[in-house]
């Protein structure tokens, strides 16, 4: 449940559970920006997904929460940035005349001023060496191994070919966000596209509430040059998951009627409809619930909402005869 990792997600879930509000519906607006992915990225970190949050208003707490969630996700599902890593940028500071570029270049061709530094590093490998040796930045040391030996390092660039970030290590100083940033460009690079999408969805779902128009997320079109594939991210559609009423009741040991089931599931942000003909409940799984893989996840949510301690216990009726291993006798 990655949505519960930040206070925004936790409050949302609790409020829905207590029926104080409905599950928010996320709207993805038309992309205004494009990002082109160069073929060389295949060699080191093939995938990227992006999104834009417009008109964001942060205060001190929400800003910190935004950074915290990134840290937690990095540690968690991103497996310490090895699978996925996030970068956030102030859109007003970067050049947007042409598409953004995601490329993988030789270290000596990469030069920028990294976040929290003043010096411009003209060779990315030197920058990595700095992170490896200087004690003031030792928290970044472990990530340097992820790209250090590669011939090419991944970089995100704006239209003026300025380096915006060097994933998974560090962003650049010029495009950094602050509490006052209004438009945020989020880029997420990864070796696992599925996970990248989960991370992006979680991040924007949790913080789009601070946008000018709450729960509106602006999409970005990502084009992979090598294959011509075009993806519009994020995809925040809900997906359907069906479970038969019989199944749901059997798992939990209850005997609830479909209306009750739907009502309970809505509390868990899984609102759905009942189809009498097939005797199934079909719930709409929101993008924040990437943990729902199978009907059994729905069944668990139903049981949790009903209350585990309210379930009726049944004595075990399976009749078998006990037996021990001869060696243990």
């Amino acid at each position, binding site marked *: *449940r990655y949505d519960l990792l930040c206070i925004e997600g936790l409050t949302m879930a609790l409020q829905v559970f207590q029926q104080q509000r409905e599950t928010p519906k996320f709207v993805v607006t038309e992309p205004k920006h494009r990002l082109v992915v160069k073929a060389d990225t295949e060699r080191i970190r093939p995938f990227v997904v992006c999104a834009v949050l417009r008109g964001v208003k942060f205060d001190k707490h929400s800003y910190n929460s935004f950074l915290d969630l990134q840290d937690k996700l990095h540690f968690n599902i991103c*497996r310490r940035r090895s*699978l996925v890593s996030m970068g956030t940028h102030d859109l007003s500071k970067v050049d947007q005349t042409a598409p953004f570029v995601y490329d993988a270049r030789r270290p000596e061709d990469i030069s920028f001023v990294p976040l929290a530094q003043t010096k411009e590093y003209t060779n990315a490998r030197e920058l990595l060496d700095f992170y490896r040796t200087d004690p003031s930045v030792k928290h970044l040391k472990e990530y340097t191994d992820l790209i250090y030996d590669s011939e090419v390092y991944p970089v995100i660039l704006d239209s003026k070919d300025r380096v915006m970030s060097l994933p998974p290590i560090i962003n650049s100083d010029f495009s950094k966000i602050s509490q006052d940033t209004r438009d945020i460009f989020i880029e997420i690079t990864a070796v*696992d596209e*599925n*996970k990248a999408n989960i991370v992006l969805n979680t991040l924007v779902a949790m913080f789009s509430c601070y946008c000018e128009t709450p729960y509106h997320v602006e999409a970005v079109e990502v084009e992979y040059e090598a294959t011509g594939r075009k993806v519009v991210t994020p995809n925040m559609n809900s997906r359907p998951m*069906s479970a038969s009423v019989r199944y749901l009741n*059997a*798992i*939990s*040991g*209850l005997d609830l009627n479909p209306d009750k089931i739907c009502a309970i599931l809505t509390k868990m942000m899984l609102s759905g409809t009942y189809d009498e003909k097939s005797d199934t409940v079909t719930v709409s799984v929101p993008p924040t619930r990437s943990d729902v*893989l*199978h*009907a*059994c*996840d729905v*069944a*668990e949510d139903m*049981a*949790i909402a009903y209350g*585990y*301690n309210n*379930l*009726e*216990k*049944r*004595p*075990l*009726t*399976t*009749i*078998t*005869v*006990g*037996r*021990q*291993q001869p*060696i*243990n006798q």
Partner: protein
Amino acid sequence: MITFFGCCCCCSAIPPACSIPRHHHHHHQAPLATYVLQNNQPVRHKKDSNMSSIEDAILTFLSKSEDAIISDTYTYAEEQNMNHDLVIGSVKSLLPDEYVATSDLSTSFLTLTKEGTEILSNGAQEVLVLAALLEDGSGEGLSMQELQAKVGKGVCKIGMGNCMKNKWAKKGGDKIVPIKKLEEIKDEVQIALKSISDSEGKTDSVDSKVIAVLKRRKLVNSVTRKSYSVTRGPQYAPKRVKKAADLTKEMLDSGAWETTQFKNYNFLTLGEKVGGGYLHPLLKVRAEFRKILMQMGFHEMPTNKWVESSFWNFDSLFQPQSHPARDAHDTFFIKDPASTVSVPEQYYERVKTMHEIGGSGSIGYRYDFKREEAFKNLLRTHTTAVSSQMLYKLANQEGGFKPQKYFSIDRVFRNETMDATHLCEFHQVEGLVADYDLSLGDLIGTIETFFQKIGITQLRFKPAFNPYTEPSMEIFGYHPDLNQWTEIGNSGMFRPEMLAPMGLPENVRVIAWGLSLERPTMIKYRISNIRDLFGHKVDMARTRTAPVCRFESAASV
């Protein structure tokens, strides 16, 4: 001191006794003195080390009169040319049979140390220093280096300090200048040492204050010698009579029993401790749990494989290959052999598909499933790895699936940070039931039955997460011993993604629960640190004295 008993081995420089020409009356003469090596010097060997002859000598001595007394065994030994230790030995062996009675003596006397002996011959360091200072007759004294060159560094160091203390010399510039003349001073130290040496170490030869000074300067040592004064005992007889320990048939036959002296029985001795095996407390608790589970109709699983492949330990349980628990941080991977040899191929394919794209109503994890990752060998992190294999067998056995209940209690390995409640190796108790249409209600019911049998009757359940169970519940119980609610186990229903590839019929569901063995043992035996229970720091005495493990079960069950 090297002692050679008998006359055979002697210092090679001295001819052995047997090469002396025999005389007719040789055997009446006292045998020639034999020599032994003591501090590499030949020393006259003390007479006869034969204990029984010493005993006889003592008894004979005491036979002189009723009041006869050996006032000091040491002087007696010296007079009789016997080894004092052996004399004491003999006395001690005569004592329990009450032939003799003793009273303790202890004598202190002083001995000179090496340094003390040197001073005795040469004079105290301060006198030597003064002599050196006055040698050239000028009265000007010497510098430190010159003095050191004359008397030696060691003498100078000690002597100079004492010289100044006694006000025999003083510092004048960079020289040390003598104040007194040799005739004016007395070498007190040498005099004192001489008195001690002459009196053979008597402690009263010199004033005790002087002795203290000498001891501080490490010139004398105090030695205490224990000896005894010996008198007749209540059972005294001029000759030792061996007491019989047992009554034998021969004695009865011959009538000797009437006159033989018998040893007293000692009813106060403690019997010899008979060793025995002891079950470790963990095994005691394990035995109880096994009993309980078999009473409930569970089959024991064969858990005698500690090394598993990642496939059975993780993949077949639908735990994704990118899961943090599969890191080296949490799991022990095997260096050699690093990979398993084979897994059931068709089953492997089904598992792979389930991870990658799902199936049977699941969307799967959608990542690339790697064969090398699945084949990695590791020390199993849970006995569920065995449960998985059992379920697979159950699904594919002759005659098809039949409902079954399994349990196991065995060791698992996790690379955890160790502290007072966590070790790298611990034991898991696991139970599972595979049957048609099982529900959470059945799971709760089974868990309740089990815990009732170990005396915990109040249970509550909390949602939890396990990669391979959904729904999952944490079990909390009100522990009667601790008088508080504690977590006592974990449970859940295995995910369909795990069961479907095995080939189990669709409406078969598997419920399972588990707990560790260490926790209930630590609660039962009031052990607060797991390292006191398991591992190399365990106190063996605790294992010996651990009480029998019995769990009070709730009345009606």
